[in-house]
C-alpha cells in the first residue's frame, strides 16, 4: 500500500534507498547529509532493510567500498555533501570508468574556504566531468522518485553509469514535506533486481580496469559518451513510464512551466525552479509573457530540448547557484553552447544568485525577470553576468 509520510528530504532519501532494495550502503557523515545515513543505519539495524551498512572512515573509502560492492554484484547507495564529494573526486572517475551503476544522494553545500554549511551547487557542479549522470530535485517527493528512477536508468544496459541525485542542503534536506511512498510491489515491478555490465566472478576471472594503452583508451571514453547520449533518450521515457505507474512525473530532462509563446524563459536548477514557477504566475498576471525551465538533468545536458525551448523565446535568463571562477555560471555557459548553432537565437542574461545559501525567493526572480525583459526590449543585454543582491 502506498503511504503518505511527512518527513525531510534526507530521511526520504533513506526511504528511497530502502524501497530500491539497496544491499550495500557505505557512507561517512557530513553536514547537511548526516540524517540520510542515520536513517539508513536505523533501517538496517531494525532489520527493515536487508543490507550491509559499511561505516567507512572517509568519503574516498565510501566510494571505494561502493565500487567494490557494485563490482561484486549488489545494488549500492551512498550520500555525501561538499567536502566529502570533493574528497571522492578520484573515485567518482573510477566508478564511471568502471561502468558501475552506483546511485548517490548529494546534499548540496557550498565549498570552503571559508567554511559554509549552506547550500549552493559548487560541490556537485565541480564534479561535472566525472562521467556521472546528475539529477537536481525541487522537492522531497522528487527526491524519492528520482532515486528510484535513477537506479532504473543507471542499470539499463544502454547506460551502465553512476548517478548523483542532488538536493539542496537545509532547503530540502531538513525541511518536512508530505511525500508519497509508493507501494513496494509496484516499485519492485518498476525496478527489477540489480543489473550491471560485469561482475567479479571466480568462475569467469577477468582483470578489471587494468592498464589500457592509447590503442584502446579513447574507445572506452567514447562508450561513456554514447551511454550518456543513451541516458538522454531514456530519462524522459522512464519518467513517463513512472508517471503512468505512480501518477508522478517531472518532465524528463527539463521541468517546463508555461514556456509556450513566452518571450522570456527563466532557467534554473533545484529549488529555485519552484520559486520560478511562483514568479511566472505573478508576472503572467501582470500580462508579461514569461515561462520557466528547470533543468532537472544537468548531465547528460539536454541540448536539443534547450534549443526547442529557445525557438520561440526572445531572451533566456539563467540563474546559477554557482560560479565558474574566471568565467560565468555553468548554466549560462552550457545554454549558450547549446544555442550556438541556432540561426535565430535569443539573447541570454546570466545571473549568479544564492551562493552559500543566500535566499533566492520568487521576488528575487521577478526582479531578474523584469531586468531581462527590459534588456529584451532594448535588444541588448547590458551586463553578461549579474551578481544578484551583492553587497558592493
Amino acid at each position, binding site marked *: 500500500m502506498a503511504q503518505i509520510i511527512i518527513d525531510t528530504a534526507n530521511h526520504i532519501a533513506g526511504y528511497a534507498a530502502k524501497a530500491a532494495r539497496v*544491499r*550495500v550502503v*557505505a557512507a561517512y557523515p557530513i553536514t547537511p547529509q548526516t540524517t540520510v545515513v542515520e536513517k539508513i543505519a536505523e533501517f538496517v539495524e531494525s532489520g527493515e532493510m*536487508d*543490507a*550491509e551498512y*559499511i*561505516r*567507512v*572512515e*572517509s568519503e*574516498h*573509502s*565510501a566510494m*571505494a*567500498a*561502493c*565500487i*567494490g*560492492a*557494485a*563490482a*561484486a*554484484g*549488489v545494488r*549500492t547507495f551512498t550520500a555525501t555533501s561538499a567536502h566529502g564529494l570533493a574528497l571522492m573526486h*578520484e*573515485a567518482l572517475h*573510477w566508478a564511471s570508468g568502471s561502468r558501475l551503476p552506483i546511485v548517490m544522494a548529494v546534499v548540496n553545500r557550498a565549498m570552503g574556504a571559508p567554511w559554509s554549511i549552506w547550500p549552493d551547487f559548487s560541490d556537485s557542479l565541480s564534479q561535472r566531468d566525472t562521467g556521472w549522470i546528475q539529477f537536481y530535485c525541487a522537492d522531497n517527493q522528487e527526491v524519492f522518485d528520482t532515486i528510484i528512477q535513477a537506479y532504473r536508468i543507471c542499470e539499463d544496459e544502454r547506460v551502465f553509469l553512476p548517478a548523483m541525485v542532488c538536493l539542496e542542503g537545509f532547503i530540502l534536506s531538513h525541511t518536512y514535506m508530505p511525500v508519497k511512498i509508493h507501494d513496494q510491489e509496484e516499485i519492485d515491478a518498476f525496478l527489477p533486481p540489480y543489473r550491471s555490465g560485469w561482475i*567479479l*566472478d*571466480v568462475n*569467469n*576471472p*577477468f*582483470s*578489471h*580496469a*587494468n*592498464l*589500457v*594503452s592509447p590503442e*584502446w583508451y579513447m574507445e572506452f571514453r567514447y562508450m561513456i559518451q554514447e551511454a550518456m547520449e543513451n541516458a538522454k533518450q531514456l530519462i524522459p521515457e522512464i519518467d513517463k513510464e513512472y508517471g503512468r505507474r505512480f501518477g508522478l512525473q517531472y518532465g524528463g530532462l527539463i521541468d517546463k512551466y508555461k514556456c509556450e509563446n513566452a518571450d522570456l524563459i527563466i532557467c534554473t536548477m533545484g529549488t529555485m525552479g519552484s520559486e520560478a514557477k511562483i514568479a511566472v504566475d505573478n508576472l503572467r498576471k501582470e500580462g508579461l509573457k514569461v515561462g520557466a525551465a528547470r533543468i532537472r538533468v544537468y548531465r547528460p545536458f539536454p541540448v536539443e530540448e534547450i534549443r526547442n525551448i529557445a525557438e520561440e523565446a526572445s531572451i533566456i535568463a539563467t540563474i546559477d547557484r554557482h560560479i565558474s571562477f574566471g568565467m560565468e555560471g555553468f548554466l549560462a555557459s552550457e545554454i549558450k553552447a547549446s544555442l550556438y548553432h541556432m540561426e535565430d537565437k535569443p539573447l541570454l542574461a546570466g545571473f549568479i544568485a544564492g551562493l552559500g545559501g543566500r535566499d533566492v525567493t520568487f521576488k528575487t526572480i521577478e526582479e531578474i525577470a523584469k531586468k531581462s525583459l527590459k534588456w529584451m526590449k532594448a535588444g541588448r543585454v547590458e551586463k553578461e553576468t549579474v551578481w544578484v543582491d551583492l553587497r558592493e
Partner: protein
Amino acid sequence: MVTIKEFPKEEYLLKGHAACAGCGPSIALRLLFKALGNKVIMVVPACCTTVIQGPYPYTSFAVPLQNMLFEATGATCSGIAAALKIRGLEDITVVGWAGDGGTVDIGLQALSGAAERETNFIYICYDNEAYGNTGLQRSGATPYGAWTTTTPTGKKERKKDMPLIMAAHKIPYVATACPSYPVDFVNKLRKAKEIKGTKYIHVLAPCPTGWRYDTSKTVEIGRLAVHTGIWALYEIEYGRFRLNPPSDRLIDKSKRKPVREYLAMQDRFRHLTEADIEKIQQWVDMDWEYYRKLASSECSDLTLHGKI
C-alpha cells in the same frame, strides 16, 4: 602444515606476466595462488602488480581482479566482502594485495578503517621498500640509509613498523613472511584463510631493480634479511606473538649474522659509512630485544589482545 612437496601443481599466475627478472613480489604472488587456490577475488591498487598482470585485454592472473585506486585497497575489500556476505558467498576469499607505498603511506587510512571494521579479508603488503611502479622513490617502508630516486644520498629516517601497527588494531592474525621461505608463507596464508576477520601479512619481497643486486640473488637476499635479523618471521595469532623458524633461533645475538653481510650485497646501501652500519646493527639488536620480550609469555597477552 603443508610441505613444499604438497604444494598444488596448479598455477594461477600464468605465463607472460611482465615482472622484472628476479622479481621477489612475483614469487610471492605465485605462492599466494598456490596457498589460496582460485576461489579468490583480488584487489590490486596502483603498484608494480598493475604492470605485472599485463595490459588490457590480457591478464596473467587466473582469478578475478579488481584494479583499484592507489589508496583504496582496504575500503574496496570492505565493499566486496559486504557484497559477498549479503549474497551468501562467504566461501570466496577476498584478498587485498598492495605494495608498501599503497599500505604504509597513502593506503594506511583505508586499511586501518577496514581492519577496525573487522572486514573479513586477507591483506598482503608486499614490501619492496620503495615505490617501484613510479621509478623507485622512497616510501615509509624504505629502510634507513637506502638509496632511492628521491633519497639520492640515502634515506635519513627509519622504516615504519607496519605489522605492529596492524597488531595494534587487535585483528585476529598478523604475520610477516618472505618468499625465500615459501613453506612458511604458504602455511601462513592457509591459516589466514581459515580465520574470520582481518588478516594482515607483511611480506618482505626483494626487488633487484630497486635494491640494485644481481637478479639471480633474490632468494639469497631474502634469506640474509632473515638470518641477519633485519627481517624477522613471526605471527601474532589472537594477540599471541610467536617467532617462526628460522627466526625463532635468532633471539641469541650470536646466532644472527652481522647486518653488514646483507647491506653489502645491495648497491642501494653502497654509500653507507661505518657509523651508519653500526647504527643499523644497533637498531636491529634493539628490535630483537623487543621481539624477545614479546615472545616471552608474560608480555604477549598484555600488550596485545587475547581470544575470548
